[in-house]
């Protein structure tokens, strides 16, 4: 029988996994605050002004969470949201940055060896050795 997949479109796969990630991040933050300061779902619900069951259903995935509610939940937990859209640094089939090797000129600004992601490599303003 081999292997099988859940066949959904790439756009919906990204969407559903993002929704899941946001929900898990909120839940993780609540768990951490619960452990450090005793914050409960009831406290969060009171701050936002809804019933605890609403918060519970949203965190469990039984109810959709709006972007506004994400911010309200973060605020009620004393957290700030960082939101960035970044270009992917990696490509499929490659889990390290692509190294383009070219001639190396050892100028004044050359730092012979530095560690990038724990791997010794050359970093210099004059060098053509770049991470693409």
């Amino acid at each position: 029988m081999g292997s099988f997949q859940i066949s959904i479109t790439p756009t919906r796969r990204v969407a559903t996994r993002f929704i899941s990630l946001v929900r898990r991040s909120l839940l993780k933050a609540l768990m951490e605050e619960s452990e450090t300061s005793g914050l409960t779902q009831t406290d969060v619900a009171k701050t936002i002004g809804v019933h605890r069951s609403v918060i519970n259903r949203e965190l469990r995935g039984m109810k959709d969470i709006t972007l506004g509610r994400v911010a309200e939940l973060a605020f009620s937990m004393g957290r700030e949201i960082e939101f960035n859209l970044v270009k992917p640094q990696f490509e499929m089939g490659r889990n390290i940055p692509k190294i383009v090797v070219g001639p190396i000129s050892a100028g004044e600004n050359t730092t012979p060896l530095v560690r990038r992601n724990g791997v010794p490599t050359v970093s210099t303003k004059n060098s053509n050795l770049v991470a693409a």
Partner: protein
Amino acid sequence: MATITQLEKAGVLAKLDAQLSHKQQEFRCFYASQKLVGWLQNDLYAATSQHNLEQTPAEQVDALFEIYCSGGELIYEWTFKDIRPIGSGVWEFKTADVRIFGWFCSVDVFVGVVADFAWRIKKHNLYAGYRDEVLRFIGLLEIDEPKCLMGGVEDGIVSNFDYPDT
């Protein structure tokens, strides 16, 4: 008797390809019976959420499989749970609309046998029936002993899990 990999090669079980991103690695494995694969590839796609969620049942399952296979943190009782009587060895994976029943043949290696929609299971009280179906499947499966990990969530059957704030 055979290993889980031999059963996969023989076509008795199929291994889930969770379509992890290039930044993720498979830390947990999910195998499925032929019946479950058929359900996931047919019944699941036709369904819409009974909770009017943006995520369809198929999308919910995809997100669940991603977390599970990539080794993400699972929430006991919210995303997975042992079926009563506790210690029978039968577990369920849960989304808002879907339940998947099966067992752990080793740590972080789950074999799903059967699945259904949550509303249907609750309406017709099908938990015991599905639990027994899993136990029958295990009994008939020619797999190396121990066929099934017994015990509860604290016995190390699943890595990286937590309890919900209640």
